[in-house]
C-alpha cells in the first residue's frame, strides 16, 4: 500500500515532517511558517550534555517542541505514542499505513542506511515520514533528502529504537483533528512572542545571554583544554550551527523567511525590515563560522584568534538583543 504523498525537501527535518503532513491533510503550509509558529529558533548552551565529546550548543528548541507548539497554536490535535515493545510500535505503524495515514517518526541517525557514512552519528532527534509499505520495505519521506527512499523492517526498527540521549522509543506522531481554517495570525504572534521571551531570558546559558556565555568559554578553552581540544570544540559549534537542517546561519535565515511571510499575513511592514535585519545577523553567524574554521583548519592557533571570534560572538549577541527587543514591540 502506498499513500499519495508529496515529498518536499526542507532544510530541517521536524519542520519538514510537519509541513509535509499538513500539506497532505489539505493545509499547505511552508517550512518557515511551521518553524516560526512553533517557536523553533533558540540559542542554548547545554552544560550537562556532550555531543561527540564536545559541549552541546543548540540553535533550536528541544526536539518535538516545534510540532507541539505549532499544533497548539493553529488548533490541530496530534496523536503521539512511544513504545517499550518494538512489535507494538510496528503494529501501530502498520495500522496507520493500512488506513492510508502517513505518519511522522522520530529516529536515530546512526543506523540510517541512506545517509552518507560521515553523517551517521548517534543523534536521536531526527524525523521522517513513513507513507507506505511494499513487499520488502517501508517507504520513507525524509525531509532533508532530495528524493523519497526506503528502509527494511529491520532497519526501521533499529532507527526507531536507537539508544542514548533523546532515545526515540518508537515515537510515532500524526495529526488527527483539524479546525475548519488555521488561525495563522494569532499563531504567528504567539510564536514570535515566545521566541522573543526565550532569546531575552534572564538565564545565563539561554538566548542572548547564552551567546555571551559561550563567547566567554571560547576565550578560556585554549588555556584550559589545550589547542587541540579547543579546536575540536569550535568545530563542533560550527557543525551544530551550519549542519544539514539549519538552512544556514544557525536557523537565522529560516526565521528571516518566516518574518517575511508573516509581514504579509499580518500586514505589518515593520516585519519586512526586521526580516532584513535577521538576514544580516545570519550573515554574521556565517562569518563567525568561517573565521572559526580558519582556526581549526590548521589545528593550531594563537590566543588572539580565539579572542577575535569571541568578540564576534559578543557582537552577534548585542545585535540579537536589540533585534528581539524590537521584534517584541513590532507585533504589539
Amino acid at each position: 500500500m502506498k499513500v499519495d504523498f508529496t515529498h518536499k525537501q526542507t532544510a530541517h527535518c521536524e519542520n519538514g515532517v510537519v509541513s509535509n503532513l499538513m500539506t497532505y491533510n489539505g493545509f499547505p503550509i511552508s517550512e518557515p511558517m511551521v518553524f516560526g509558529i512553533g517557536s523553533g529558533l533558540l540559542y542554548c548552551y547545554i552544560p550537562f550534555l556532550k555531543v561527540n565529546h564536545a559541549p552541546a550548543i543548540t540553535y533550536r528548541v528541544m526536539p518535538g517542541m516545534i510540532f507541539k507548539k505549532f499544533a497548539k497554536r493553529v488548533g490541530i490535535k496530534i496523536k503521539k505514542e512511544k513504545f517499550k515493545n518494538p512489535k507494538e510500535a510496528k503494529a501501530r505503524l502498520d495500522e496507520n499505513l493500512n488506513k492510508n495515514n502517513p505518519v511522522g517518526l522520530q529516529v536515530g541517525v546512526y543506523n540510517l542506511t541512506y545517509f552518507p557514512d560521515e553523517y551517521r552519528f548517534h543523534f536521536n532527534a531526527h524525523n521522517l515520514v513513513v507513507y507506505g509499505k511494499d513487499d520488502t520495505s517501508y517507504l520513507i519521506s525524509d525531509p532533508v533528502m532530495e528524493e523519497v527512499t526506503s528502509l527494511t523492517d529491520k532497519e526501521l526498527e533499529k532507527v526507531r529504537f536507537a539508544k542514548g540521549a533523546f532515545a526515540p522509543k518508537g515515537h510515532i506522531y500524526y495529526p488527527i483533528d483539524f479546525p475548519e481554517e488555521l488561525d495563522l495570525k494569532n499563531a504567528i504572534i504567539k510564536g514570535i512572542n515566545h521566541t522573543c521571551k526565550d532569546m531575552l531570558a534572564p538565564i545565563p546559558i539561554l538566548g542572548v545571554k547564552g551567546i555571551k556565555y559561550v563567547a566567554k568559554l571560547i576565550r578560556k578553552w585554549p588555556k584550559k583544554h589545550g589547542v587541540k581540544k579547543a579546536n575540536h570544540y569550535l568545530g563542533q559549534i560550527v557543525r551544530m550551527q551550519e549542519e544539514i537542517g539549519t538552512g544556514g546561519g544557525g536557523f537565522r535565515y529560516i526565521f528571516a523567511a518566516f518574518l517575511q511571510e508573516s509581514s504579509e499575513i499580518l500586514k505589518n511592514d515593520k516585519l519586512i525590515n526586521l526580516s532584513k535585519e535577521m538576514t544580516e545577523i545570519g550573515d554574521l553567524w556565517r562569518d563567525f563560522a568561517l573565521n572559526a574554521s580558519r582556526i581549526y583548519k590548521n589545528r593550531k592557533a594563537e590566543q588572539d584568534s580565539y579572542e577575535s571570534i569571541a568578540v564576534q560572538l559578543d557582537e552577534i549577541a548585542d545585535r540579537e538583543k536589540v533585534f528581539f527587543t524590537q521584534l517584541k514591540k513590532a507585533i504589539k
Partner: protein
Amino acid sequence: MKKEEIPQDKSNLESADFKELYYAVDDKGNYVTAKSSGWDPKTIALDNAIQDINERVEIAKQKVLNHQTSPIEYYMELHKMDLSILSSYVGIWKWRVKRHFKPSVFKKLNLNTLKKYAEVFEISLNELQQIKE
C-alpha cells in the same frame, strides 16, 4: 545571504549524491530555497571530527593490543559511541561497562554479558574477544 552566495563547495555529500537546502534571498529580496553541495568550513569540521574518531579508535586498538583495556572499549570507539551511549545500548550500568574495560574483568565475563556486547556491535563472540590487528 544572497541566493548566488550559497556555497557550492565539494563535500562528503557528494558520495551519496545528495544536496542540502538553504534559505537565501533573491534579487528582489524575497526568500527562496536553493540547494548547496557543501561548504568548506563545515566540511573541514566534519573531516576533523572523523579524523578525531579514527585517532580514538587507533589509540583504543593499541591499548587492547598492549592489554591495557578490553576490546569493548575499542568497539565502542569504532561505533562512535561514548560510555553513556554504550551503556544504554547494552542495558548495563555505566560503572559496570567501565569495569568491563579492564582486561582482567573482561576475561571473566559470563557468556550472557559477552553476547549482549556482541549483539550491540553486530559481531561474533570471537571477534569480540579477539580484535583484528
